[in-house]
């Protein structure tokens, strides 16, 4: 179980190899990659700035990963979340889950993403020709998180 908060990009194939290469009892690996979308309701964006709470972020991600490991029989979890300025098409977040069978890997990855969206101290600001604005939290994300409790 490893958690990183970083400005640099990540290599999903290398991360997956690191998670699985020492363990031949893994039958299923699920990944989620979040990307910066160019079109928003306000118009096309040029940059997305991700602010975070440095003292709290790694602890919050670790707690979320621990919860997933307590709920599902996982053989591995990896979370990478970027911060700083990003651009359309850039990767924002990677979640990897490894398990014997696919159901646990899928469910745990969904759980991790739902919790990341509402419990990890990151805030997005989008900027384009139309101006810039902080991204509002989505009610849907709260509902998605609530379904696990």
């Amino acid at each position: 179980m490893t958690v990183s908060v970083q400005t640099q990009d990540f290599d999903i194939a290398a991360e997956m190899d690191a998670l699985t290469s020492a363990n031949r009892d893994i039958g299923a690996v699920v990944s989620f990659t979040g990307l910066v979308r160019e079109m928003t309701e306000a118009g096309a964006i040029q940059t997305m700035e991700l602010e975070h709470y440095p003292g709290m972020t790694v602890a919050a991600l670790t707690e979320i990963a621990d919860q997933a490991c307590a709920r599902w029989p996982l053989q591995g979890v990896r979370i990478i979340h970027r911060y700083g300025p990003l651009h359309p098409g850039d990767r924002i977040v990677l979640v990897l889950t490894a398990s014997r069978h696919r159901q646990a890997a899928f469910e745990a990855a969904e759980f991790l993403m739902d919790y990341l969206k509402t419990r990890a101290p990151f805030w997005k600001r989008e900027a384009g020709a139309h101006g810039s604005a902080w991204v509002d939290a989505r009610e849907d994300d709260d509902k998605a998180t609530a379904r696990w409790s």
Partner: protein
Amino acid sequence: MQALYFSWLRERVGTGSEQIDPGPATTVAELIRELSLREERYAAAFADISAVRVAVDQKMVDLDHPLKGVREIGFFPPMTGG
């Protein structure tokens, strides 16, 4: 006590980090009221309290959380990570 502000709360307060004196406040809610009375920039930041989340010593807490022994308090809007 060290206070940290993020996202638009940081913008409204005008700083990301400062030392604050809680005065007579004994809970998070009382501190928010106290600061809002002291200066307009706090009143603006905390105007919609339903949009404010609080972490005490880097753990999320409710507004009735006590301030006793707290070294760091963070104020921010709902998170938008992932």
